[in-house]
């Protein structure tokens, strides 16, 4: 259970990084 939780948290964190810095960040980067 703990292993699943830690891995899920890690993957969620990675997804959050991708989303925050690339996907949603692109909105502010459009004017480049």
């Amino acid at each position: 259970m703990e292993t699943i939780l830690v891995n899920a948290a890690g993957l969620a964190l990675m997804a959050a990084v991708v989303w925050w810095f690339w996907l949603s960040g692109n909105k502010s980067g459009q004017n480049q």
Partner: protein
Amino acid sequence: MSDRTKLKPALSISGASCQGCAKKIRAALEPLTGSTELVGVDIEAQTVALPDGVDLAEAARVVTEAGYPAEPAANSEPAPCCASKTATSHNRASGADQGPAEAAAEPGQATESAKDDQITLSVSGATCASCVASIEKALLSVPGVTHAHMNLADNTATANGTGEPDALIKAVESAGYGASVIEDADAADDRRQAEDKKQYKVLLVKMAISLGLGLVLMVWGMGFDTMMVTEANQLTWINFGILTLGVMIATGGHFFTGAWKAFKHHNANMDTLIALGTGTAWLYSMVVSSVPELLPEMARHVYFEASAMIIGLINLGQALELRAKGKTSEAVRRLLDLRAKTARVIRNGEEQDLPVKQVRKGDHIRVRPGEKLPVDGVIIEGSTRIDESMLTGEPMPVSKAEDDEVSAGTLNTHGSIIYEATRVGSETALAQIIKLVKKAQGSKPAIGRLADRISSVFVPTVMLVAIGAALVWYNVGPEPAVVHMMIAATTVLIIACPCALGLATPMSVMVGVGKAAEYGALIRQGDALQTAGKIDLVILDKTGTITEGHPAVTRITAVDSNATLLALAAGLERHSEHPLAEAVLNRAREDGVEPETVTDFEALNGKGVQGQFDGQRVRLGNRRWLEAEGINVTNLDSAANTITEEAGTPLFLALGDQVQGVIGVADAIKPDSEAAIRRLHDAGIKVMMVTGDVDATARAIAVKAGIDDYRAEVLPENKAEVVSEMRGKGYTVAMVGDGINDAPALAAADVGFAIGTGTDVAIESAAITLMRGSLHGVPDAIEISRATVTNIKQNLFGAFVYNTMGIPVAAGLLYPVWGILMSPILAGAAMSLSSVTVVSNANRLRLFKSSHTPARQEERN
């Protein structure tokens, strides 16, 4: 006037930063306009001017496709300000059309238009390549900004376009950095220096506190207690944890606020990595200390000392970096120091010392021996020798007399003079040079832009790697897995900081451009600095580039005495206005020969000149004429042939019906042209000459100067075609010529070198302007370029390869084989060391010496 001067700005563009971009845009528009000559690209204003009748929407499309986003200008019928601005830049491009008065007025206009277009901000808090990307992005988000550029080496950002200063400052501040508009560049420089000094001390204090705490914790944990939390020491570690947090906020709070501000804007920078790395170590240790039962016994290790020491080491790195950074702008400071503070102005017959800012055009200024000239002007009384080495790199003082131009910042070494101010304030050659050098120092060559692009995606990628590494350790690592995953993640975050990457290019460019200026070569763009190193063919214009540009006596062969021959020739030529006459008179003056008195002077077109001396007819002219007059000149055949072979014109002098001698007049090769060409050969560069002269003269010059190949009878307008042809053959071509007549050829080359005379710094068509007339400037600039590019590559290697190699080690890749897992403290130290290495390596460029060092330069070095 050329066709381009009739054009109006029709498109507004972005992203065009150099002559190369202008060329690409012209080439893209050629199918629509029929000729590249009809397209005017104004890099400063980011506009393209087109002739009437061109479909603007189609033009915008092709320019956008060429890589420069373009749209029809808001008002393609230009407003008065734009019209004059565009005309100014076009006049520059087709400088052949302009008179000296227009040329003199131009720098002032250029300054005015630059003020309208560009706002320079002083930025604080930027530490790495990611900060550069964030700041540029923030500036570009301001409405009206077409181009933004941040220079990390001197912490300034420039924004082109119509963005309001307040909006620009707000945008930079909301991205997490401080900003203020630079209105007075001098005051800003002074302020920055004072701030840097203060900041240096602050960083050292912070470093001492955090490193001190880290050491105490380490000694405590290892010497007196244990780094593992037990029931006995739990409270002590909690207290140490709180103390560490206090120190982290006090000495590394700026990393955390910077990271938060960047995060809010979907950016990640060096602060993000430091904050995450040290924050993770602290948080883990705090959990271990507060609720140890949550973790297995083996994992109850604290890392408070790592958090404190990493912040201490990074502060130390930043302090050292700050000090080294100050040295790179030395070249500009040296130029700034050339300016005189006061001027002795003569107004209403009275001499008064005035601050140089109060000097007006037309003022008469007295300068005594040993004093610096405060402004540009023309000598109206007296003669002297002026040391221009600081401006042009020319080692010997230059003789100046009435009507000669003098420049601000040069040193009067000899006599007392009075001169009239013609250019003051920001119009002086020195002010223009300082402006140019600063601008070029802030520009980025292609290699630097690549580094920036990489680093802007680097930080988020590192975060992914850190999380990935942690997961791998958790799933397949040995016990205590939690400790290992925490160490791996923290170490990856710390070691990957791209701070050195952001400094790698700008540091070297700053030193390289400054060094080139010291050698009398003004580099306009970082791109030119990079391309100059790749040159493998140098095309030289002949007149004024290889040669002096005006005829001079090269040989005198007399039947009796040279002095008598010269005195008679000068006596005759004194009455003539022919350019050859001036050469003879100059030689007589140089040799101290007094011209004889010749009467009944007569100039015979196409033959020569004649007069009466001592009751006899004296003739000076070509062989055909003298022989037609029945004078035998065969005894001087060999001397005359030598003169012809050297591309000179033989002038025979006869007294009565006896030939007295022959004088060779030629546009002499500059004394150091041959040596400079040899240096180019030594550097593996082919040298070619283009000239409008006839084949025989061109061949003679080419042989004498050691040139590999030449093209004779090339009209000025066709020189650009020769350049394009050679580029087509695969050469990276440098064209060296006069900035005005050769402008199209200079613009067509990969790198254009304009040979100036020290004051022609406004030569826009050339990427590099040589301030002294010597050709040595070309190999000097190429050597500096090669040294700079090598230096940049070393820096990028040191910064980037180091980071990428460090990451797998930090992630624990060596653990399965050798059992090595890097400590986060070591990562912090190594990261700081990489910044210091990059900055020190860039500073090494300051020691550059060209393979030809004039005596004066050696003294100064």
